[in-house]
């Protein structure tokens, strides 16, 4: 392989490792708070549920629900998007909860540029470039997956552990859920 091809191969390999290792966010742009703003954030985390169809109902399909994590009780998960959804726990096969806006992209670019910059290091690039990759790639991947609670299928311990990130961690028995307004009101945008 020529040197030129090897450089391209290396760049593509780094990019592949970064992109396949990084986790994508389900949340809409600008919904999740920056990490440092989490302590005063007044909403729940962004939850994404994948439900499996009822085997007895041939018309039912796999569904994905995403929205603000409102609360949970013995049987259901409550999330808010264009309205309040009540999803039975028994039908949920996968759950992902995100808390904040990640800097994974910035980290990835940083790692990429940092690695490429070692081209100028001459002989020492044989040391610095691997160091950039060894610590930089896991850093970028780690940044994308940290504070992201995913379980397949979710257990009761999982629900108990993420409850504190709901809008109402205290429970909803005394709250009128019918008065909760949706996060996104599509009628207004039309």
């Amino acid at each position, binding site marked *: 392989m020529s040197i030129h091809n090897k450089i391209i191969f290396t760049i593509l390999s780094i990019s592949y490792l970064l992109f396949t290792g990084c986790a994508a966010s389900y949340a809409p742009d600008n919904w999740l708070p920056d990490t440092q703003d989490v302590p*005063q954030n007044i909403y729940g985390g962004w939850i994404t549920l994948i439900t499996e169809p009822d085997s007895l109902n041939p018309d039912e399909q796999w569904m994905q629900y995403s929205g603000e994590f409102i609360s949970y009780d013995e049987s259901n998960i409550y999330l808010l998007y264009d309205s309040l959804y009540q999803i039975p726990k028994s039908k949920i096969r996968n759950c992902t909860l995100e808390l904040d806006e990640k800097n994974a992209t910035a980290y990835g670019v940083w790692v990429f540029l940092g690695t490429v910059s070692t081209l100028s290091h001459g002989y020492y690039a044989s040391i610095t470039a691997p160091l950039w990759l060894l610590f930089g790639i*896991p850093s970028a991947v*780690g940044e994308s997956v*940290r504070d992201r609670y995913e379980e397949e299928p979710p257990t009761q311990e999982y629900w108990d552990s993420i409850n504190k990130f709901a809008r*109402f*961690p205290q429970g909803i028995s005394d*709250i009128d859920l019918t008065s909760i307004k949706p996060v996104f009101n599509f009628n207004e945008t039309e």
Partner: protein
Amino acid sequence: MKSISYFIKPVISRILLFLISVSLIFYPNCGSRIERISESPEQFPVHKSSQDLPFLKLHMKNGDLYVLENWNFIISKDSVSGSGKLFNPNRELIFEDKFTVPVSQVVLAETNQINASAGAGALVALTVVTGIFTIVCIANPKACFGSCPTFYAYNGYDYIVQSEGFSSSISPALEERDVDALYRIKPLSEDFEVQLRNEAYETHIIRSANILAAPKPEGGRVFATPDGKYLQAINITEASSITAAEGDISEKLCSFDGAERFSEADSNDLAAKETIEVTFYGPASDSMGIVIAARQTLLTTFLFYQTLSYMGTTAGDWLANVERNKNQFKHLLDNPRNILGNIEVLIQNENDEWEKIGEVGETGPIATDIKIVPLTKISKCESDDSAIKVKLRMAKGLWRIDYVALADIVKEVKPEIIFPSTSSPEFANNSSVTELLANPDSVLVTFPGDKYLINYNLPADYKNYELFIETQGYYLEWMRNEWLGEENAERVYQMFLNPKQFYKDLAPQFKKVEAEMEETFWSSKYVYP
């Protein structure tokens, strides 16, 4: 360009890719930056402030949310003050102002710790300490006096403790009604006074405190049954003999006088049982009952506080779970309770087998309660010497029995409910006690050291009535700093799911402190009588 060729040599590349892959496997699991703690009011940060935690979020029962900064905890008023914002359940801003929020209205307090990003290294980290804040107990933390409200009444010589209200109600979801006999008190007039005291380090929430007055039969008394009935009884007779493992104990149990019989817990199993054999002489009938006056030892106090220790920093989460899943948790709480059990009453059936016909037992080590267990089927038992034999079976070291007697049951009666008429705070701030206790939707909240005098108007012929005190409410435990070092979630699960083994494992630990617990307990009351 020469360095590039060194960099991408196959062997080096493979090693590098291998190392990156390994680090990708392990690294993502250890990079959490957001650590959120949601605590119940009893774990409020007492001496921390916004200098340690810039933001404090208070979740209210109706879904409102306070986000406070520049906050601090006001110990004397048991509230949190700070400036910030109040949001409704829709997270619309209601007010932006300075607030003082009573702790009793808060369901959960939330703090967040943002840790440094391990991956970035160079990122600026907000290092904030989240501690668990406590009130320190005087001596052995698990022997601290507590935790429920105590009621004192006059016995002709002095005010003595006659009732400890709702001892097992450690959270709003476990709120319950409790009835205790005022068996040894002697009202001096129709104007009857009860002292309500908070002698513990806990916060008490009292919904009602009424007197029940049941008409006594001629020459007799009225006793409550474990299932809430009130029975007139006459011919109350002490036992002819009472024997336990240590021998004859009849002298201690012949009268309700404070001289109690109790045993030490088993060294290997806190749930191990013992029996006491009681013999009465006289003809048996189906309208008889055995009267038992007893209270618990400090074993349950130790078990309760040890459980809180094992819960540690997650105690608030456990209690919040109780609030959300009341029925499920009440069912779980029954597991350890059932293994320890109450004082079981057994009689011999036609086949000479000992059969359980009832049980008594009220949670709490402070006030002795007296109850009657009807002896059903006893007339069917044949006996050559007209002896009526009863066995009491209970966990060793769990019960202090003061009195055992036999009585003839006359009939069931319904007591009259007498509500508080007037009250006065002796060491407290609340002057509207009777209004609060009369309204089922309001509560009287008492803090350590509070003392109220509550008056009741008894019937004109008050000497012909047996009095009971009926209370309803719950209390909130405060975590002690010394308990936090024993946090052990596995032990908590063991207690709920395998209580038999739990009691065996905990026996050696209890035996080390059993002897000194009494002295520590009574010397750590918040207020001396």
